[in-house]
Each structure stands twice: as C-alpha cells, then as structure tokens.
C-alpha cells in the first residue's frame, strides 16, 4: 500500500470517529451539568468527574477485574463460536432438523439467563466455569442463527456445481457452505462478542469467587452493597471497555477473513 493510500485511510478512519466521539463528549458534559444543576445526591447519580476519579483510584482493582472477566467472556465466546457454527451447520444441513430444532433454539434464547445462572453454579461449580458457561449460553444463539442464515443463502448454482463435481456432504460444507456463510457468521460473532461480556458478568454475580482478585461482576456487587455508586459506574464502564475490546478483536479477525470476500464482491 502506498503511503498516500495509508494516510488517506487513516484520515477516513479519524473522520468516522469524530461523530461518535462528539456525541460521547456531549453526553458526558450533559451528565456533569445535570449533576451540578439537580444535585441528585452522590448515592443516586455520581458525576462523571467522580466516576473518573474513582476509576483512577481503583485502577488496579478494575484492571484485574477486566482481565478476569475478559478471560471468561473470551472463553465463553470461543465455545459459543464453535458450538454455534457447528449447530447452525447441522440445522442448515437438514430441513427436518431445522424445522424441529430451530424453534427450540429460539426459545432457549428467550430463557432469562439470570434465572438459570444459579443452576449453572450447581452444575458447573463456583469459579470461572460458571461465568464461561454463562457467557457461552448468551452468545451462542446469534452465532447459530447467523450461521444458519448464511448457509441457507448459499448460491444454488454453486451447490449444483458441487453436485456435478460429486462433492461429499462434508466437502460441500467445508469448502462451500461454511466459507459462503462467513460474512453472515462474522456479523453474528460481533453481536456475540458484546453479549459474552454481559453473560460473563451475570455468571459472576452468582458464581465467582470474591477475593483479592475479583472479576467485574463481584466488583459491581460489592460496590452496590457499599453504596459506592461511582465505583459501580466505573466497573460498568470497565465492562464496556472489555466488551469493546472483544468486539474490536472479532471485527479485526472478521475483516481479515472477509478481505477475500470484499475483494471479490466489491
């Protein structure tokens, strides 16, 4: 890539970042102003300055929490990604299975995670297993659905081509349907990446060890109990950062995977 192309791409990226940043700054300013004007009480709504101060003061705690929660979320995401793609592939392969199982899979998505989280503890025990399982459960459905969608949209002509070439079912899946579905799968994975952090935290609410190194969920629970609302906000922001990083990683991987697609489609 030439230097001018690189710098113009950088400029485009920066330009794209301006509107969301502006909105963000405006929101934070409005928040601060609202706290100054209405004085709701720190216990109800801390100001962004207080939150920032708390985040800085508790940076070691929050960094450890982010790391632990990030690991759980990433683990759950990885499990969900594999399971979702495989399950989606199986459903896509059989009209019968799809008719029978897809509605059930949809129902599973409706089950409130908070209700089954305590059961996860009983099944998986305390510690990372529960938060990983919880993260996997919330993020599996978008992967499954996007895989199914992508595969069902496989070009009929290519399916026919594979038929004339006497491809086996597994070959057709691995060499045609799976790569064909990748743009759709990447979309599902990006949704799943964000959800996995929420899932991990919900799991931590019931099933994590509360010690010197506590994950985000435990930090939030403790802060709530101690009325440290500003730490609650700081922890929630930490969770958002973890989610954003995961989302970014998945998007970057997706971009690499899709480069070939973009090159050929675009």
């Amino acid at each position, binding site marked *: 890539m030439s230097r001018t192309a690189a710098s113009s791409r950088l400029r485009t990226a920066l330009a794209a970042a301006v509107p969301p940043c502006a909105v963000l700054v405006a929101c934070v300013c409005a928040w601060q102003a609202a706290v100054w004007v209405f004085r709701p*009480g*720190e216990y109800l709504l801390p100001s962004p300055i207080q939150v920032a101060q708390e985040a800085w003061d508790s940076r070691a705690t929050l960094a450890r929490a982010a790391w632990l929660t990030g690991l759980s979320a990433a683990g759950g995401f990885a499990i969900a990604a594999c399971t979702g793609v495989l399950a989606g592939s199986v459903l896509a392969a059989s009209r019968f299975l799809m008719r029978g199982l897809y509605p059930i899979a949809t129902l599973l998505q409706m089950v409130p995670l908070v*209700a089954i989280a305590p*059961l996860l*503890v009983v099944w998986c025990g305390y510690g990372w297993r529960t938060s990983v399982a919880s993260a996997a459960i919330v993020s599996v459905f978008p992967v499954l659905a996007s895989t199914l969608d992508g595969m069902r949209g496989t070009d009929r002509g290519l399916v026919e081509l594979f038929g004339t070439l006497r491809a086996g079912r597994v070959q057709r899946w691995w060499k045609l349907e799976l790569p064909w579905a990748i743009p759709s799968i990447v979309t599902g994975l990006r949704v799943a990446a964000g959800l996995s952090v929420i899932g991990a935290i919900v799991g931590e609410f019931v099933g994590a060890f509360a010690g010197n190194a506590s994950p985000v969920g435990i930090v939030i*629970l403790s802060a709530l109990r101690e009325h440290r609302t500003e730490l609650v906000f700081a922890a929630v922001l930490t969770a958002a950062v973890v989610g954003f990083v995961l989302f970014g990683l998945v998007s970057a991987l997706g971009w690499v995977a899709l480069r070939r697609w973009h090159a050929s489609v675009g």
Partner: protein
Amino acid sequence: MTWHHRAVRPLGIFGARALAAAALASIVCGCGDGRAPAKPGSGAAPVPPEAPALRPVRLQLNWMPEPEFGGIYAAKQDGLFARAGLDVEIIAGSAGTPTAQMTASGQVEFGIVGGDQVLTLREKGGDLVGLFAIFHTSPMGVMVRADAPWKSLQDLWASDATVAMETGLPFVRYLNQKYPGARVKLVPTGTGLAAFEQGIVQAQQCFISAEPVQMELKGIPVRVFSLADGGYDPYTVTVATSAAFLAKDREACAAFVRALREGWRRYLAEPAKYNPAIAKLNPGMTVAAMDVAAAKQHDLVAPPGTGANEVGMMERARWQTLARQLQELGTIKAAPAVIDDVFWNAP
C-alpha cells in the same frame, strides 16, 4: 443498595439483586416515583367511621414477609397504625430492593435498611435516620452442617471451605481483618440455599432465626456461628426514614414508631396469632416454620429483661461502635461528625 443481610431464597432471587442497578436508575429518573398515596383502608384493621382521614405512608421491606417483620404486620393487623392516624402500606421486597436509596430519596417514607447502610449511604449524601432497630442483637450468622469440622468462625476462616456470603458485606472485611491470611473462598449468595444443600458451599450466611430453621425442616442439621458473638453487632434490621421527612413530620414518625413498638410487643407475646396472615403473603414459608422462626428470634429482638417500651430502642454507643468499625474497615472514610444525627429514638 439495601441488600438484605442474607440474600437467601430457595433459588434464583438473585435476579432481583442483579437488577438493583436498574432500580437505582429508576429512582434517579423518578420513574418509580409514583406519588399516588397508599389506598386507605387496604389493611385488615377496621377503621372507626368517625375517625379523621388517615395519613397514607409507605414502608418498604427489603425481604419477603417473614417473622423478622412480625411486629410490623401485628401493628397493621391490630389497627395500631390506624389508631396512630397512619395508613401504612407495607411493601414486600427482595434481595435487590434498593430500600436505602428509596427511603433517602423520599420515594417511600420508611424503609428497612441495614445499620451499616445508614452510615454508608449518609456518606454519599443520602441522609437516612434510624428509627427502630428490630433486632437488638444481630441475627446474622454463618451456618455449617452439623457434622462440619469447624468449631468456630476462626476455624472456618482458616479453612479452604467455600462460603456463600453477601458480596460487599462489611462483616466479610471484618473477618478478613480479624483472621488475616484467610484461605476461605468467598462466593455470592445468588444461588440461594441450593448450593448449600448440594454441599457445593460448606458455609452459608444466614439469619439465625430463618435459614437454619428451613434446613432443619428439610432434614439437614446445621450449626450456626453468630456474627454478633464474633464482635460485629450492627442494628441489622433497622426501620429508617430520611432526615428530611423526620424534620418535616417528627410527630408522624413518633406515632409510627410507637405503633411499631406496640406491634412488636404483641407479636413477641403471641406470634402464632399473626403468623397465618404473614404466611398468606409469603407462600415460600409455612406457618409452622414461621412459628419456629419467631421463637428463635425472640431473644434477639428483645433480650431477657428488655422492658416493653424498650423494644426497638437504639443505643448511642452501638452506633458509635459500628461507625468506628466501618471506618477501620475502610467501608466509610470518616465516622459521622454527630452520631446523634444517625438515629432517633422516638419518645
């Protein structure tokens, strides 16, 4: 948040707790601030026809209706609140109900909060005032199975047992400070009693008068270590109001507390008379279990020798001790400048 000091439901109540942040948001937005007065005459008490209009007030519980609130329901059932000119709407809560914030912000006139929460919230600008301490001695405890090897909290804390304790509870900090180098593994209480029953956790925070009773009734014998005996004895179940409400309507507060005190006197004397009505409001607990719980909690509410007019009374020294302990634990930065602002014993 006004976490109850045990957060133990059979299963799954944790959702409410986890969603407390949402509840907090609703207070901030004022969405939950339905200022409609409580419906008059909604209680069981017959109101004399010539009585003046009752003043509607709300009392937010932080748990399901249980014997720990027995005196409140007794006062309601016997028309004591009505006689005091109040129509009290008792609102059941759960582990996630942010009663401290609701009370401090005036969304409800009265709320059940932990004594420590009065102090932590005050430091964050929520001016709560304790009016009535239901338990003179903290009912908090840690239960283990009867055949567990630990003889004391110190034993337990030195073990590598998994202990379900409410996350962020000052008492955990207290024990960690008292028994340094703890190996015990602390986990949240969100699974209710299931994890304890399954043996996944070996020790569980409880109210001495409640969960152990449930376990015994299920045929699981347990032993309980009292936290009060361990040196940390806050007013665990405190009826509180906001400083603003108290300043505005001291007389209503006093009338409310007097009715409450009489209600408790009656409940302590004859819990069986009131438990069936409470059990109707809480299908999760049988009347029999409530009777046992009421018997177990009697001396915690009113230790032997407590005068009829002393139930619920708070001691200045106890609040001071709590403030000092919380400060030492780092839960609050400084003790309140004037400890008498923190509580008010109605005459």
